């Protein structure tokens, strides 16, 4: 009798787990490496999708810890969207631990969001790691440029439609509505930064090339000695001189950069530090793509004024 009761409890637990595992099965399960793609998929997929991002907006997407909890999210994914330019080079290790054939490299459920992007900072000469942590495929921070939204969202619609072809029209309709809002916002952003067009800025790490290029701002220097290499005192002294000579008024940093160092250099050069997150969610409460660009543009325009 006791055994039968135990068996019943066990069976109920297994059924409960299976039911919990099957929760949300009617929706497409989409996992993205970074929250920018999550925000874009939410715009396109609407209530047809459940989206999760592996990295948080406050994390450096280069250095995400590959926890088994990431593998668990990938285990259930119908679609996996990655940056494709080695921003999220850790994604293969996470996918391998997920045992999900739908999203392995080459499967229909794997989406490279960079397809068709005109990549900036592609090395045109021989590169090696004496130049720091260079990206042989080019700068991967393209999601910060709202002008590339038509191409990126096209890639997302193509990916979503591969796993749910019957919803292509819905996805495309949502995409067009989203792009219309981006186009409208683009006027606002361009106007906000028009008075400071051509302004020179210094960055901590070369995260902002697409964003700066879009709005006509110029990156003249970097706090890091070379990408990923902490700065030497000589480099910082030279940078301060350069900032003074070129009247640089703003240093752009990410939430995870060494803010004390950036603050010190900015003070020495008579500039100010502006935290510009490169991903949605980098600032608490800013959880949409347009909201994130709004925040960045306003913060930068205010600092440069």
């Amino acid at each position, binding site marked *: 009798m006791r055994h039968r009761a135990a068996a019943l409890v066990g069976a109920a637990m297994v059924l409960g787990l299976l039911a919990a595992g099957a929760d949300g099965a009617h929706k497409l399960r989409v996992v993205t490496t970074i929250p920018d793609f999550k925000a874009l998929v939410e715009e396109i997929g609407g209530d047809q999708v459940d989206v999760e991002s592996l990295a948080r907006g406050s994390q450096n997407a280069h250095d995400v810890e590959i926890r088994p909890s990431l593998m668990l999210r990938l285990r259930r994914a119908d679609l996996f969207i990655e940056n494709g330019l080695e921003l999220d080079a850790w994604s293969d290790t996470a996918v391998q631990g997920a045992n999900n*054939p739908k999203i392995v490299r080459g499967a229909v459920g794997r989406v490279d969001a960079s397809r068709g992007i005109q990549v900036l900072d592609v090395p045109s000469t021989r590169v090696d790691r004496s130049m720091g942590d260079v990206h*042989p495929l080019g700068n991967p921070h393209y999601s910060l440029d709202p002008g590339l939204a038509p*191409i990126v969202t096209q890639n997302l619609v193509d990916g979503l439609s591969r796993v749910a072809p019957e919803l292509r029209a819905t996805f495309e309709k949502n995409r067009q509505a989203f792009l219309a809002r981006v186009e409208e916002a683009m006027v606002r952003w361009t106007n906000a930064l028009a008075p400071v067009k051509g302004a020179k800025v210094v960055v901590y790490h070369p995260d902002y090339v697409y964003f700066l290029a879009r709005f006509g701002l110029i990156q003249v220097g970097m706090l890091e*000695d070379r990408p990923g290499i902490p700065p030497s005192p000589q480099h910082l002294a030279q940078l301060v001189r350069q900032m003074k000579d070129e009247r640089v008024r703003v240093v752009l940093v990410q*939430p995870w950069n060494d803010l004390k160092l950036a603050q010190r250099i900015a003070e020495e050069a008579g500039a100010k530090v502006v935290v510009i997150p490169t991903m949605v969610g980098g600032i608490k409460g800013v959880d949409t793509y347009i909201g994130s660009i709004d925040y960045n543009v306003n913060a930068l325009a205010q600092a440069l004024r």
Partner: protein
Amino acid sequence: MRALALIVISMCTALGPAVAAAQDAAELRKQIEQLQNQLESVTERLKRLEAQPPPAPTAPAGAPGSPGVAAPPPASTPPSAMDLARPRQPFGLYQQRGSGQLLFDMGIAGDFVGNVTQRNVERAGGGTFAGQENRFFPREVELSLFGQIDPYASAVVRFEAGEETRGAETTVHLAEAYLTLLTLPYGTQARLGQMRNRFGYSNEVHEHDLSWVDRPNVMRNFFGAEGLQEKGVELTLVPDLPFYIEALAGIFNGDNETAFGRGTLQHPLVTGRLRTFLELGDEHAIQLGMSVASGDTDDRNRSTILGWELRYKYRPDSWLHPLVTLTGEWLYSLRKADVGVDVDGDGAIDRVDKRQRDHSGAYAGLEVQPFRRWAGGFRYDWSQYPTNPGWEWAIEPYVTFWPSEFLRFRLAYKHTDRSPQTRDAVNLNGSSARNVDELFFQASFILGAHPAHPF
């Protein structure tokens, strides 16, 4: 009749241009539609081109962060015959990854170790790097090749070179070569070939990736200096559950001479592992696991090793590295041994019985990394020997410095204390290695690609 013919002719004459005009109009409409389509296509392309960012403003020459970088990329021209005949740059292959000419990744990891200890320890060969005491040597230089075989499988091949004994020629051997079937159903995956077994946490980790200079004592005592590396098949299952759990089962030859050694699939080494993971918010995470490996020794006795593992990390939000890492493993060995029994007390062995000898060992390591470039910690070891009597304990504090992600230096001190019963195990050439003090220096580098490591 003639009049009728005239009427027909005049009608045809009158209608001819009208019909022709109608045909022309249809043709024109068709052409206009085609032009409209072309215009739409060109407009669409124009929109896409406009959506591209303008060329990035060029930083002044020599500006940091843009070494050899141009934006947008120049239009590529096909190489001339002279270009093709010219010797390749060292990074020629790597540069061509973008255009997909090299279809897999490759990387080299180098690991050099120096150690200084007492003379008696050197004579006894009782140091951590037995036979290499008071030397600086290339412990492991590893060439890794890895990538997708096809849409269904990936492969990893690793060659290792190192100086295994004092002053010996550096030898090269195949360290790992396995393929992973990625598209099996029901959340399963299979790995086939020669591999480091996924037994506990540290066994799978390569020497240069360990958090310490040396492998924990219990791993070396129970599996040998190289750890458990076997040839066979591993199958993993990650069920679709609300929490993470990975189940692993494997069948191997059982070639490891320290723990098993029978080396045949007639009496295979069978392995298993269960691993789970708990997240306590975004900043704290714990991995727990238990493993088993059971096979026959070369004298046909059963040897079973059980293992339990724990790994905890505290990584404050937006930090690029963990602040605190705690790692621990406990191994328990159940090993049958042939024991001669003198039944009648005449001093001669009358029969051989099989008796079980149980031994255990454990380690715990704590690392604190307050800065991106610096970390410090220590490891405490306690271990019995799986076949000999006695035990040893050790403490190993260390400090690690990373000039960059790809270069690392480590300095460590290790004190080992062995029980008196270990004379048989470590007491060669009339020297003793009961109390060992060692100073380690380690230099490690990575060239090229290196896969990311899981938690």
